[in-house]
């Protein structure tokens, strides 16, 4: 029982980072309809930027916001100068994915040139632990979990309670009809890339803080988990991705604890496949709803 509870704690901490990243990924996909593989490389960039800034002694909150803003702008620019024109020239869904794969490889290469190919270790300034109800969290993990919860709550309010949120949902569902409602979809899409880029950046910093040692491949490795979480939750569903992130985090930690760390991914992805067989559209997609898009329910 002790092991189980402690593993649950690790799982929640790992899951929080996955959730944070996955929500950004899934919302980006839901609204812009681009399965953006470059998201992983942007996350690597965020992790390295976070690492550099944290080692300068900056506060973790400051670093999170600063890197979040940088990645937000980079993502919006990336969409404007690369993906939008590609789509405008008639690139289809698959070609766009290949485009983002290419961009991811290039960005990763640039990171290697700038930061070197070897792993870096982030000295744990947040090594203190906090315990309760049998769970033990490091302070860093607690910060990440609370940031995730706060950002999710904010996103929820944005999507359900604000005019912009409604416009985002409309744009994700049917862009032409959204325009026919008078919604300036170009702006909404820019805003979406800023917002999801921010989540990507925050998740990258969270990853740097919690992973301790990482290299240029961290984002692309992590992307698999985020895609799994998104698919599990029903692609385009922010709450689905959030729960999906927790499921992936917890199952992989349980797999590591009860079987072997070498198999933690195997366990997590077996569960993903089993879930897909049971609920092919993801856990949280309502019956009769069969399109990739953003929903607030």
């Amino acid at each position, binding site marked *: 029982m002790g092991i189980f509870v402690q593993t649950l704690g690790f799982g929640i901490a790992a899951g929080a980072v996955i959730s944070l990243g996955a929500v950004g990924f899934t919302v980006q996909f839901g609204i812009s309809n681009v399965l953006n593989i470059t998201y992983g490389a942007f996350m690597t960039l965020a992790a390295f930027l976070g690492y550099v800034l944290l080692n300068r002694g900056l506060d973790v909150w400051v670093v999170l916001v600063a890197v979040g803003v940088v990645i937000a702008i980079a993502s919006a620019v990336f969409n404007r100068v690369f993906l939008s024109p590609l789509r405008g020239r008639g690139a289809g869904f698959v070609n766009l994915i290949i485009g983002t794969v290419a961009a991811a490889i290039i960005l990763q290469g640039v990171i290697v040139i700038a930061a070197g190919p070897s792993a870096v270790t982030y000295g744990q300034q947040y090594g203190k632990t906090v315990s309760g109800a049998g769970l033990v969290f490091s302070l860093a993990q607690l910060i990440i979990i609370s940031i995730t919860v706060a950002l999710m709550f904010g996103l929820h309010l944005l999507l359900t309670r604000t005019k912009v949120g*409604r416009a985002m949902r*409309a744009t994700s569902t*049917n862009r*032409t009809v959204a325009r026919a*409602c008078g*919604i*300036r979809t170009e702006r909404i899409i820019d805003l979406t890339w800023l917002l999801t880029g921010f989540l990507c950046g925050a998740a990258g910093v969270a990853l740097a803080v919690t992973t301790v040692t990482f290299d240029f491949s961290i984002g692309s490795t992590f992307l698999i988990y985020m895609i799994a979480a998104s698919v599990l939750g029903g692609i385009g569903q922010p709450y689905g991705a959030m729960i999906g992130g927790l499921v992936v985090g917890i199952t992989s930690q349980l797999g590591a604890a009860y079987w072997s760390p070498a198999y933690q991914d195997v366990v997590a992805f077996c569960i993903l496949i089993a879930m897909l067989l049971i609920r092919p559209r993801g856990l949280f997609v309502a019956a009769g709803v*069969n399109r990739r898009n953003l929903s607030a329910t």
Partner: protein
Amino acid sequence: MADASESGGKTALEVEGLTAGYGDIEIVHGIDLSVSEGSLVSVVGPNGAGKSTLLKAILGLVKVFDGSIRLDGHDVTRFPLEQLVRRGIGYVPQVDDVFETLRVHENLEMGGYLLDKPTRARRIEEVLEFFPVLAEHMRRYVGTMSGGERKMVAVGRALMTSPRVVIFDEPTAGLAPTLVQSVLEDQARALADRGKAVLLVEQRAHAALQLSDWAYVLVQGRVARSARAADVLSDPEMGEVFLGGAVKS
């Protein structure tokens, strides 16, 4: 010269010398067209004639090479769709015409995105007056509704902004034959009778022309004929235009 304006009130939408297409390919050439308040104007023509392209050019969805578009006398050439909507155009796209994953009332509310809350509520009442059937379905997901019901949601959504000009792209496409007449009559014609300027692109030329005031026959991207709908309908030559047969229903 006789033109569409003789059939009704003042001209709402006026297209002059419009040349448009995709990339650098011109599809429609020098189109002149006008729609006045209270009239139903149809654009008919064989497959590939450029009917949809013409609508998309008016709606800022494809490239306009030349010519002008005026709305209530103001130049709106190359305005993006969302801008045109703000200025009084309502657009009902061909097939993908609703927010499928939202409920009926959410579709209508989204249609009233530009409005304040009380106006939005009032407009929903007006839409329900026009489509009483929808009142029973307000909480249904549009994705689960029949083709005819969906079309009502699509048109209702477009009416939320209380547009002066309503543009339909093939409203009967994909509908059961039994619904064709009712969509054209109870929606397109009824809106014209309520004073809207209605522009309709239709494959089912016969059905559309019977209800229309004015017709433009588009052939290979040019207006081959602009006349009273009844005259086009009774002209034996027009049958030739449509695949060499009679004007089909």
